[in-house]
Structures are given as C-alpha cells and as structure tokens.
C-alpha cells in the first residue's frame, strides 16, 4: 500500500493549496512509517474505543502494571527517568508538494443519501485529519454539518471490514474477480437474465454511466435502488402535481415568509447546510438589515427547524394533510369540501394569520412539505407555491439530480417479488444494508435466501454481508475516486485523501469486474467517464481544475411555466398508499435520527456521543411522546414500552419531548444495529422492525404497552428551564428596529477593584449570534475533530463526564405542550477576569498577552478547583484515561497541532489556539498584522449559518468588533464581572402581530410593544 500511497500522492491528486504551517510532535508519523511498524499490523485487530469498557474493567495485568508505574511515579521516580529514544524517518524520495508540518487541503465531496456535500479535507503528510466545507461549493459555501465532520472518524474505524469474505471465509479480490469472470460467460449468454443490481440513491454520473452500459450489454438484467433515506413521497408528489419528475431547489434568500409542513429543512434535507445559510441570512438584523423573515412550522416531534420558528404548531403527521388542504382552500386552490374543516388543535386565528402572511408575500413566501408527508401534501404544496407565484422566485425546479429517478420502495418491492419468484440468480448489492434498513415486513432477509449468488459491497461486514456469499470491503469516500451531484445538481469529482487503509474497493471497480474489465482502478474509470464529458484537447487542464476546485457545474433551472397546477378539487387525491391502520389508538412516525441518520455510521463514536439537538440524549434512540400521552400511558422517561403496529412490535424506552403532539410516538431509524461494529452494536432499538410495508413514514393505529422495564438513558443536559435567570436574551424584531436599547435592559459595566490589563497587539474575542444558531451540532463535532477530544461512553456521560469543549445549551420557555426552544452554544468564554485562573495552585491556566485564557495540560496536576470556580462550567476533566492510546489507526486521525490529553488533566476551549499560533507565526514571518478572518476557529468554520464570529477586538475594522457594538450584544453572567471575551447577540424573533409574542421576550420586564403592522410587513 506504500506505493499506492505514493501513486496518488505524487501524481494524481490536486491539493487545493496550503493554508499555513502547522507543526506538531508527530510530523513523521507518515503512512510510510506506519506501513512498516507492527502497530500497523495490530491496527487490524485491536480494541476500538477502549474507554467504553474502561469503567467496568477489572484489575487485570495491564491494570497491575499501571498500578506499579503509578506508584513508582508517585515515589517521584518519574522525575529522574529519561524521555524515550525517538527516531526520524525521512522520505526516500520526497514528494514535492509535501512540506512536513504544513497541511495540504484537497477538495472532494461526501455523498450522503446520494447527494454530495462539497468538502475541503486537511491532510498531514498524507493522512486526512480534518474536514472543512468547500467555500466554492454551492451545497456548502465553506460550512459542514455534524455527520460530515464525524465521517473522518469512520475512515480510521478499525471495525471497518478489512478483507473480502466468501461464504464466511476470508478470501481475496483476485478470487472474486476470477469467479466473476466465469459468471460473466453465463450472463452474456443469458443476456443478463437473473442478474439484479441493487444500489442506494445514485447521483454519480460515472456510476450511472457504467450501469447503463452494463444494462445495454445485458438487457435482461435489472437495476434496482433502495435507500432508507430516499425521498419517495417528494418524487410521487411532483409526479402527481406535474406528471413528470422534477427536483425542487429552494432559495430561502428570497423568502420573507416560510411555512414548513413537517419539513426539517434546516437539518434533514439534501442541501440543508446551504438552506440554513440562506434562511438565516434573511433573519440577521444585527447586521443592520431592517427586515427579517418569519417562519411558521407545523410539525409532529420537535425539530431544530421548529425551534427556530416564530410560530410552531404541533400536529400529528396525519393531521397535516387536512391542514394543507385547508390552507390551499383559503388560497382558493383547493375546492373540495374537505378543505373547510380544520384538524383539532388548529385555531382559526392561527390559520388566518398564516394565510394572510402568505398572501401578503406573493413571490417572497415559501411553503415546504417534509419527506415524511404523503404525496398528496407535496402536490398541494406545489399548487400553493404556484398560486403564490413563488415558483422561479423563492423556489425553482430542476431536472432530477438522481441519475435514474425511481420510487425506491416500489423498486425494492419489485426486486423482492423477483427474488421470491426465483427469477434472481445473482444479486449484486452495491452499498447499503437493506437487511437492516428495509422494513421487516418485506422480509428481505428470508427472500435473500432464495438468491443463488449474493454479492455485497459495503464498508462494514454488516447485517447484509452476513447473509451474502461474497462480501467486498468498500472504500471510504475519502479513499475513493468517484463523483457525485449535490442537491442543486452540481457535480463534484471525489478524490482520495489516502490509499484504502483496508484495501477497500469502490462500486466502480466492482461494476468494472461485472463488465469483464477486471483490474481497472476507479481513477481510470472516473477519468475515462469525464474524458467523454469534457472536450478532449483541453481535458488535462479541465480535469485538473475540476478536481482542484471540487465543483463541476450546476444543473440549469427549468422554465417555471412548465410547472402549473390547476386549481381543482382534491389535489393529490388519487390512488396512493393509505396510511397503515391498526387497531391501536396511537400514531407512530418514523424519521431519520438527528445524529445517526439512517444508521450507516452507527459505529461512529462521535455521532453516538453527539447530544441530540433537542433531547440531548446520547448513545440511544427513544420513542418520544408528549407529557400528556406519557401520563395517559402511565410511563415516564426511560420506561420501556412495547409498541405494536399491525401485528409487529418492538420494545424501546420512551422520552417526553416538550412540544410533541399528543397520542403520537416518534421513532428514529439508525439504531438497533447488530453487526455495525463494537461501538454501534446493540445500541437502541430498530425502528424498521415495525415500519409499514407500504413505505409510508407514519401510521395510525399503533398500540403501546408498558413493560415495566427501565432503560437507563444518558443525557448531557437534565435541566431545561432558565429559572428566570438572564441567560438567553430574547427580543422582538420590532423593538430592535424601533429603538436600539432593546436586548440589554441593564448595562454590563461593573466597577472592578483590579487595575485593567492593557492588551496591546491582538485581543481575541468572539461573538455568537443566537438568532443565527440553529442548534445543528456541526460546531460540536468540528471542535471534537479539531481538538482531539475523546469520547467517554454512555456510562461516563451518565455520571456527568462528557468531554465536549463546546456544548449547545437548550432551554425551554413556556408550557410542556408547545414551549419555545432556545439554543445557546456554550464554551469557554475566556473571561478577562477569569475566576478559574486565580485558584489554580500551579499556574496551569493563565492568560496570554492577547487575552485568551489558556489551559496548559502538561502543567495541570488536576485539583479541579478551576472547574468548581468556573461559573459557566465549561471545563472538562479527564477523570479516567479517555483518550484511546491503544488503537493505532486513531493515532493517524489526531490533529498533530493539539496536545493529546491524558488522564487527570483539565481541558477546555482554547479558541483553537493552535490556529491562532499558526496565523501569528505566518504573519510575523511576513512582518504584517493578522488580517481579519485569517484566523478562524473550528466551530466558526463549520457553522452553516455563520453564527460564530471570531477575531481581533483591537482591530476597529474587524467583524467581531462591529458585532460587539451591536445593541443586541451582551455577556452571559457578566454581572459576575468575569468580563467574558465571548459575548452573545440576543435572539431576535419576528412574530406575526396578530399572534402571541414569545414568552421569553417578556422575561426582562420590557414593555409589551405591539408593533404597527406596516413594520411587520416591510
């Protein structure tokens, strides 16, 4: 693998340019070296997150040795020992673009549910260490989301499958190729009869190209697609509305009024990262803009989108279609009788306000339906947007991004029918894990048995692989040459950052084998495909540019006139999958998990330990329900219930979600894996167990039974009220624009006994805009990846020892039935009068001359006094050896510029001091000041909505300085005179004048301003 590393390092990949020098203790930890070390062999079979079982680990041999070591050290002997002998291993032939200590950045993209998110990946000496967004890429604009940030951990996951398996025995790629060669004879003869290929959503031009050619060769063969995150309803809705396939691209930057019908567009849509940016940019009043958009959300279980809404309305999924119909009725589109009657829980006032607002904003409004809603709702929404003249304005239609748009569920059902009918001899599953993800009712596993030859390509030896004859380890996307298209059709060429660590293969290579082109590398395949697309004479440069930029071309918008929905009766009323109906009284909905998605990354510790945006639960999925329903069922948090839907049932713990509609349980996919790896196995329940057979994402008539069992659930935040304390300040748009005194009722200026420190030179500070923070967690994982923050496991979180430097506090205001929700990212605020520093007996935490509060790990003895004296409780302590120092592959992952902390040491947010240092050194070498925006913290860089702004307070031109002067700016707990360097901008909301203002806005005893409608309408 050494040579192959060279192969692509040297010639083919194209660095996106060096940012700045970043040195580290392990510069020479290059792959070359690893290839030779025994660790690299061990890497294949070593315990993954050893910290998970650290807790119950008995005193074994290792313990005893540590014990001896510790007691020796205790005797002070450690003081007299010499540091271990280290070696330097230089290259034999140095690749020219690699400078030890300077990271390179390569453009690529992460395909998720088929859709690409454009990325720049940081690489140290050929090992990717950190993922950033690609500023050039429309789906990212430089930002990322939590899952993309975490995906780098999966790259190094030692649980990924490492060898080709044949009927449970270790085999080789060559053996596979020879067998396939033999098969191919027959297939060609039978024109491909009995050959079925099952993929996930395919947007890759190359892959679809390969498939088409294959299907031309073998016309009897069939290509099926099944993706648990597929958006069948959206597609059906479009077909019903227009009789043709089309994807929608929303332009939130043009929308003043947004109505979401169960659509979590800030987190769960392809393109959510971009949508979040555009949506928030229309709300940012701190940046002087006068007007501000308004968001109405109708949804079942609370989502971050709902949390951002001015007016949120909890409704059971099944009640949303009637509401949509009613709205359509008010707008004079829907003429059927059913249009008039309102679902329970919707007030006339509410409906009128929404309709009024929409009508007043023709062309600048936007109505969105969620993936979970039935096609009819989508059809209605198309009609409504059409009637409101939004098409071509706040949304536009494009040719489908999917290479071959299908209804995945139908496609799967057809395949299963063929399998059952014995018409399938060879089934090639390229990615995906249908045995786990497909609804159990479809009986995929059983029917698979009737297939003679089953081939599965996947990153893990998972549930599906287990039932297949051939398992081919798949290459991680950071190891692959490929391509993919984004939500708006933009194509990106994926380039590998590293040679496959475990010899993984790509779908391209497997298909090449099927076509008898054995041994073609995916590089050749992808390049060959684009050679056809691009004009030949400039191909070299064009290709280099495409790979370098990571952006190829967007799909052009289609003329809106082709999308008209005539006003009629019963839009979308046509033969459609009926919601599954059982005998029970409760409604169940199924959605992708906010942290794990569809579960393909279930073995990713960062995601498992990522607090869910609202419940803050880690290492579990729950059945969320409303307080009232819980009371009715006589259950409380953590009680295990049995949920039965039409004969099938599952057991899972319940969790009360404030704002959840009554009589509705929300289950999340992605958990209950059995062969995901040591991290993900046996975590949570498997929702697909009872999913309806018709592919609907919710069903009425489920019944719930108490089992009496308890299931301990770990959360990172157990208290949800602000206790009337001045923590998150909320104000109304009218107040901000009327007069600028609003958000800060009392000034933060306090007298101090101490003389002021003069901070000449740089003075680093941060401002967090709470209007912009959507609580999406991208920053949390970004921080974890940048700063080598370990995970601690469920038990330790339960004790209260999670290590995240950055947490997103979530507060509820108002009743349990439908409270307001506020997010507040909380990390070290770098107080100028830091209480933590004064109490440290060894000066392990002090200020530097630029005003950041530093934590010097190697000096820390661990008295934990600083944590006690920190009013923000943002310090984290290594109570045990949390950092996994035994798994070699994880050493490759670590950021060489950040010290890895050991047991017994305090740590906290450092303002990414390693990035500050790098920027400072770069500037000092050139004898120039550091430019604004030159130093960017990891959280800031990841944030989709640019809610976090970092910079030099002494630079009058800096953005952070300007924000600090905003009337919305305030310091949390500033009354303690800690003089925090990180301050917050009050959350601004823009409620409809006819509807109640947010309760939180009244907390600070400000007069209830009832703004004049004109202002609200502007």
């Amino acid at each position, binding site marked *: 693998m050494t040579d192959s590393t060279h192969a692509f390092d040297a010639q083919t990949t194209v660095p996106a340019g060096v940012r700045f020098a970043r040195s580290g203790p392990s510069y020479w930890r290059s792959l070359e070296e690893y290839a030779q070390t025994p660790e690299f062999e061990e890497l294949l079979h070593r315990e993954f997150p050893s910290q998970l079982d650290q807790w119950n680990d008995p005193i074994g041999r290792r313990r005893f040795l540590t014990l001896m070591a510790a007691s020796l050290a205790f005797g002070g002997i450690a003081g007299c020992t010499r540091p271990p002998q280290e070696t330097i291993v230089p290259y034999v032939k140095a690749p020219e673009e690699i400078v030890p200590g300077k990271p390179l950045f390569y453009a690529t993209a992460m395909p998720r549910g088929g859709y690409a998110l454009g990325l720049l990946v940081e690489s140290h000496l050929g090992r990717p260490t950190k993922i950033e967004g690609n500023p050039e890429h429309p789906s990212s604009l430089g930002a990322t989301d939590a899952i993309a940030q975490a995906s780098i951990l999966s790259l190094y996951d030692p649980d990924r499958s490492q060898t080709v398996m044949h009927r449970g025995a270790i085999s080789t790629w060559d053996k596979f190729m020879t067998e396939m060669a033999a098969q191919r004879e027959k297939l060609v003869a039978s024109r491909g009869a009995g050959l079925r290929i099952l993929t996930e959503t395919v947007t890759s031009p190359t892959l679809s190209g390969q498939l088409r050619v294959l299907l031309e060769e073998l016309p009897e063969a069939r290509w099926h697609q099944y993706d648990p995150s597929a958006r069948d309803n959206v597609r059906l809705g479009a077909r019903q509305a227009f009789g043709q396939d089309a994807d929608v691209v929303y332009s939130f930057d043009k929308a003043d009024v947004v109505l979401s019908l169960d659509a979590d567009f800030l987190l769960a849509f392809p393109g959510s990262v971009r949508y979040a940016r555009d949506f928030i940019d229309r709300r940012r009043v701190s940046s002087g803009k006068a007007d501000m958009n308004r968001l109405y959300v109708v949804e079942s279980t609370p989502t971050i989108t709902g949390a951002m809404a001015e007016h949120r309305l909890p409704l059971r999924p099944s009640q949303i279609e009637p509401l949509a119909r009613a709205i359509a009725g008010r707008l004079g589109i829907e003429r059927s009788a059913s249009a008039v009657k309102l679902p329970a829980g919707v007030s006339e006032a509410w409906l009128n306000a929404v309709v009024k607002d929409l009508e007043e904003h023709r062309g600048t409004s936007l109505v969105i339906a969620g993936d979970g809603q039935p096609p009819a709702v989508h059809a209605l929404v198309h009609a409504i947007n059409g009637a409101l003249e939004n098409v071509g304005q706040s949304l536009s239609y494009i040719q489908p991004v999917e290479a071959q748009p299908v209804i995945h569920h139908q496609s799967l059902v057809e395949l299963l029918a063929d399998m059952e009918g014995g018409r399938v001899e060879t089934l090639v599953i390229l990615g995906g894990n249908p045995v786990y993800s497909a609804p159990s009712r479809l009986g995929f596993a059983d029917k698979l048995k009737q297939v003679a030859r089953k081939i599965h390509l996947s990153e893990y030896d998972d549930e599906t692989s287990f039932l297949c004859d051939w398992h081919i380890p798949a290459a991680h996307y950071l190891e692959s040459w490929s391509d993919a298209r984004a939500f708006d059709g933009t194509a990106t060429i994926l380039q590998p950052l590293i040679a496959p660590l475990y010899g993984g293969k790509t779908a391209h290579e497997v298909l090449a084998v099927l076509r008898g082109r054995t041994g073609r590398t995916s590089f050749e395949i992808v390049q060959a495909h684009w050679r056809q697309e691009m004009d030949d004479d400039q191909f070299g440069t064009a290709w280099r540019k495409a790979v370098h930029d990571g952006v190829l071309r967007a799909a052009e918008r289609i003329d809106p006139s082709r999308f008209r929905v005539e006003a009629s009766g019963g839009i979308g009323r046509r033969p459609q999958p009926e919601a599954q109906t059982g005998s029970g009284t409760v409604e169940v909905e199924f959605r992708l998990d906010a942290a794990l998605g569809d579960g393909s990354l279930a073995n990713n510790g960062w995601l498992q330990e990522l607090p869910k945006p609202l419940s803050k639960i880690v290492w579990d999925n729950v059945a969320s329900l409303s307080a009232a329903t819980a009371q009715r069922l006589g259950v409380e948090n953590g009680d295990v219930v049995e949920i039965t839907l039409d004969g099938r049932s599952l057991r899972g713990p319940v969790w009360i979600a404030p704002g959840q509609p009554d009589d509705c349980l929300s289950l999340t996919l992605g958990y209950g894996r059995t062969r995901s790896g040591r991290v993900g196995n046996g975590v949570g329940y498997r929702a697909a167990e009872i999913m309806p057979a018709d592919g609907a994402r919710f069903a009425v008539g489920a019944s719930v039974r108490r089992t009496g069992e308890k299931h301990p659930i770990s959360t990172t935040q157990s208290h949800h009220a602000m206790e009337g304390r001045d923590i998150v300040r909320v104000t109304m748009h009218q107040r901000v624009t009327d007069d600028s005194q609003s958000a800060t009722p009392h000034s933060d200026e306090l007298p101090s006994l101490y003389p002021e420190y003069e901070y000449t030179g740089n003075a680093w500070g941060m401002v967090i805009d709470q209007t912009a923070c959507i609580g999406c967690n991208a920053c949390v994982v970004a921080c974890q990846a940048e700063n080598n923050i370990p995970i601690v496991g469920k038990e330790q979180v339960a004790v209260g020892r999670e290590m995240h430097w950055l947490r997103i506090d979530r507060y509820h205001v108002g009743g349990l039935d439908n409270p307001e929700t506020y997010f507040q990212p909380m990390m070290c605020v770098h107080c100028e009068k830091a209480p933590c520093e004064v109490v440290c007996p060894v000066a392990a935490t002090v200020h530097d*001359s630029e005003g950041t509060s530093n934590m010097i790990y190697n000096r820390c003895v661990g008295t934990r006094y600083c944590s006690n004296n920190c009013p923000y409780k943002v310090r984290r302590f290594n109570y045990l050896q949390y950092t996994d120092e035994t798994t070699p592959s994880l050493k490759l992952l670590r950021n060489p510029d950040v010290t890895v902390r050991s047991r017994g040491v305090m740590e906290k947010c450092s303002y990414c001091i390693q990035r500050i240092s790098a920027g400072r050194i770069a500037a000092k070498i050139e004898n120039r000041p550091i430019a604004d925006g030159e130093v960017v913290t990891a959280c800031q860089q990841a944030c989709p909505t640019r809610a976090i702004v970092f910079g030099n307070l002494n630079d009058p031109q800096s953005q952070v300085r300007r924000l600090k002067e905003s009337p919305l700016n305030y310091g949390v707990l500033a009354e303690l005179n800690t003089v925090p360097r990180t301050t917050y901008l009050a959350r601004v909301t823009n409620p409809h004048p006819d509807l109640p203002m947010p309760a939180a806005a009244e907390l600070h005893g400000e007069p209830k301003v009832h703004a004049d409608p004109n202002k609200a309408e502007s």
Partner: protein
Amino acid sequence: MNEPLDLYGLLAEFEHPEELLAAAAAAHDAGYRRVEAYTPIPLPGLTEALGTVPTQLPRLTLLGGLAGAAAGYALQYWVSVIEYPLNVGGRPLHSWPAFLPIVFELAILGASLTAVLGMLALNGLPRPHHPLFAVPEFRLASRDRFFLCIESRDAKFDLAQTREFLSALHPKTVIEVPR
C-alpha cells in the same frame, strides 16, 4: 583547691521540694556557684534560688518569626513579579493581600522551629550520656526525688567541706558522682 579530677560533684537527695528549695538557697548563700538542682517537676522559684540568669529564648523566637515572614514575602514577590510575571485572571502581579496567609504561616513556622531548637541548643541537649546517669538513685529524679548537685569545678568545691555542708542540710543521702 584540692579537687579530685575523677569527681563530677556531690549529689544530695531530698524527698520534698521545700527541702530542696531551702538547700539550693543555702548553697547559693554559701557561695557555691556551680550548683544545679534536678527535679521531677518544674519548681517555681528554684532558678531564682540558684541565681540563674533568665533565658534569651523569647528574643531568638521573635527573630525566627520575622525571618520566616520576610522569607515568605520575598519568595512570593520574587516569583510573581520578577521571576515569571503571569497574567493570572487579570489580577495584579503584586497581589499583596493574597500573599499574606503564607507570610503568616511561615512566620509561625520560623518562630516555632527557633523556639524548640533554641531550647535544645541552650540546654545543651541532646545529651544521652551524663555522669549523673551513673548514679542509681538519680533514676528517681524523674519520679519523686529532688536532687542538688554541687559540681567539682566550683571554685569553692572541697570534697570534705562540701560533703559536710550538704549533710548539714539533712538530705536523704549524699552521693559522690564519678566523672
């Protein structure tokens, strides 16, 4: 002055403190200067009777205390202001109020050590070996007997006369203490 070189002194044993006090006074009046009394308990007035000068210990102790305090403040000032000035939570480098507790503790420490070591030094302790320990009766000096010893190096010492003088004080016994 015929003083036998192999003699440490003459030891008189008494049963009651009052007798010893009287004897001590008498010996002093008789002009004996190298006289020492040995008692199981500190007897008020005994030193006066023997005409011993009061001790310097209190002054030494005071000096010890001052030294400790000075050292304490000097150390903290030097470290925090001169050697490695650090911005600790925005507090002044010379945070004198925060330095006082340690100054106080070190003052006490210095004084106490001086008091104890000074006492031992002035008393010429430790001295596990001493001629008196050779006298069997002397073991009772730490129980219930009171002794008066006129040492042979006393200018006025004369074995015969001194023995006579002591016996005149009606002791229980008079013992010759070998050197």
